[in-house]
């Protein structure tokens, strides 16, 4: 089986605190679109950030094919299983090579607000760009053209020279997708990409993400907390609960029982009980 990421026994604790991730074992294939469900604090963000080591894992292995780091697109020998690298213990050079191929999308978009949309998109090439030239925002013509093409793919070509903070939230998130595309990513990690957007924009952003992922064969891991969106977009859904994966399967397999396992098993508290004052002074129910 083709393999993009193989996570084995991943653990994470902050300081001496409790484990946020407890022995996570899971693997992802190239081109999969995986949605991740779970309550706040279930470990979704930590899991995603461990995969490109924005957060250092406490233990476990994150195996990725060496071919991704080398940039060679084709497997030299299709019959043999590809050589794997453990990212959890990789040195700074290999880590950077991996990050170059892993796009990341955030809830708060994290664009540089005072920079143009185009420069924001171009920042996706920093991992490969000439160090000195890029510091002074100078990029080769070919890269600028590629940036414009990627902006076109997310439908924002006309906004290329506007300042990023003049765009709406949904547009900013699509700029972030274009920025990730500049990395020619094999994987895109999206941490609650639509949590700050209204339902209509959420659908737009996820449509865009899904389309480019299918076109380029990118593995996408996206955490969502809207069940319907997760079912609609995911080829596969995984559910986190208390730092463990408690569901892994096709959207059809996500039964009510499985949802309860993800959301309600422990630590779930019902909404507050009856108000202490029994009297209401205005028209209750008129809302």
């Amino acid at each position: 089986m083709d393999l993009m990421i193989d996570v084995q026994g991943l653990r994470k604790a902050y300081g001496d605190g409790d484990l946020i991730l407890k022995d996570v074992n899971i693997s992802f294939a190239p081109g999969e679109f995986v949605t991740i469900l779970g309550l706040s604090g279930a470990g979704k963000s930590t899991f995603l950030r461990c995969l490109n080591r924005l957060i250092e894992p406490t233990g476990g292995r994150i195996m990725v094919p060496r071919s991704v780091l080398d940039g060679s697109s084709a497997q030299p020998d299709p019959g043999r299983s590809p050589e794997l690298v453990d990212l959890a213990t990789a040195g700074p050079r290999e880590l950077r090579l991996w990050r170059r191929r892993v796009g990341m999308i955030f809830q708060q978009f994290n664009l540089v607000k005072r920079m143009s949309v185009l420069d924001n998109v171009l920042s996706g090439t920093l991992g490969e760009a000439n160090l000195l030239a890029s510091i002074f925002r100078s990029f080769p013509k070919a890269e600028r053209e590629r940036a414009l093409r990627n902006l076109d793919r997310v439908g924002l070509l006309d906004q290329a020279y506007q300042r990023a903070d003049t765009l709406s939230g949904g547009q900013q998130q699509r700029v972030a997708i274009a920025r990730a595309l500049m990395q020619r990513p094999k994987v895109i990690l999206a941490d609650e990409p639509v949590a700050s957007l209204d339902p209509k924009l959420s659908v737009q952003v996820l449509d865009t993400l899904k389309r480019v992922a299918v076109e380029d064969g990118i593995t996408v891991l996206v955490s969502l907390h809207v069940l319907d969106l997760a079912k609609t977009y995911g080829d596969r859904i995984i559910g986190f609960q208390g730092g463990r994966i408690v569901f892994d399967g096709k959207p059809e397999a996500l039964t009510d029982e499985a949802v309860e396992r993800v959301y309600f098993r422990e630590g779930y508290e019902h909404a507050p009980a009856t108000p202490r004052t029994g009297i209401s002074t205005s028209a209750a129910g008129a809302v």
Partner: protein
Amino acid sequence: MLQQPPEPGSQPQPQAPSKPMTEPQAERKVPKSGPLDPAKAPSTPPRFQAAQPRALTAELQAFPKPPRHGWKAWAVAFVLLLILGWSFAGVQFDFKELLRGAPQMVDMFQRSIPPDVSTLTDPERYSLPEELGLKELILPMPLEGELAEVKDRWWRNTFPNTVLGATLQTIQMAVAGTFIATLIAFPIGFLAARNTSPSPIVYHAIKLTVNFLRTIPDFAAGLILIAAIGLGPFAGTLALAFHTTTVLVKLFSEAIENIDPGVVEAVTATGARYPQVVSFAVVPQVIPDFISFVLYRFETNIRAATVLGLIGAGGIGLIMNSDFRMFQYPQAAMSVIVLIVLVMLVDYLSARLRRLVI
């Protein structure tokens, strides 16, 4: 209309409307066997239930009381009063002295009126060299050897001793001093910010050093520098640059520490290296603050340059000082007026500029 009394065993969900749309959706999917017991489940979905309005009457007594501060507030007030009394005693504050001095103040004021406008307007004051016309003197044009020397001498020595020349020199000191300080403080600011410093050791070392150096006021630095390199605007400029650097490093580094870390995370995640992260994620976020700080320090430095003039470091302060010492009050008054106009002008312009960049 009154709300229905809660049915026994029912479970109102008072905060439902404030919840995001999405979570109740998840709740709806809960099977009947789940933690929401069917007997206890509300008949309407929670998100359609109204919030509980607040009671305004005696029922309020059921709410928790705000914490009271009582004796602590009194203790703080008492200590503040003690400090105030102690300070006023220390400065020998005395209204009688103030009243006794009032006639002198009035006298000084009367003797300064009218201010001697001629220090500014009378061409005689500028002792223009006879060998040169105004055009040759002001415009940068090629001149014969000796004439060039005359021109040079006038610009270096004569003009800065006039009110206008000294005022311009004060501005020049502030511009040059602020510029040098900005150049030095810019890179150091990144080393002195916790989130961009290459190592905690560097961060602490620089912070400590700069905090120590900042305690040296600019006129103290001026006294030292004048003793070392002599009277004149150069020593004053260096003193300004020195003190401004220490202040700007503090302001810059604090601005850097307040940036949105999400952008840094995003740029780091692309595989960017440290200088690229600084250039793309940090600098664009802090540039408006930096410009604002530099302009603000420039305003401050105009005033500081004047004070430095009083101790012999050139500029309008020097002229004012010598006027006062020679009891030439009308002239001194004119210098004060020029200074006031200058400071107001600079404040106004830099406020406009700052509004442009923010």
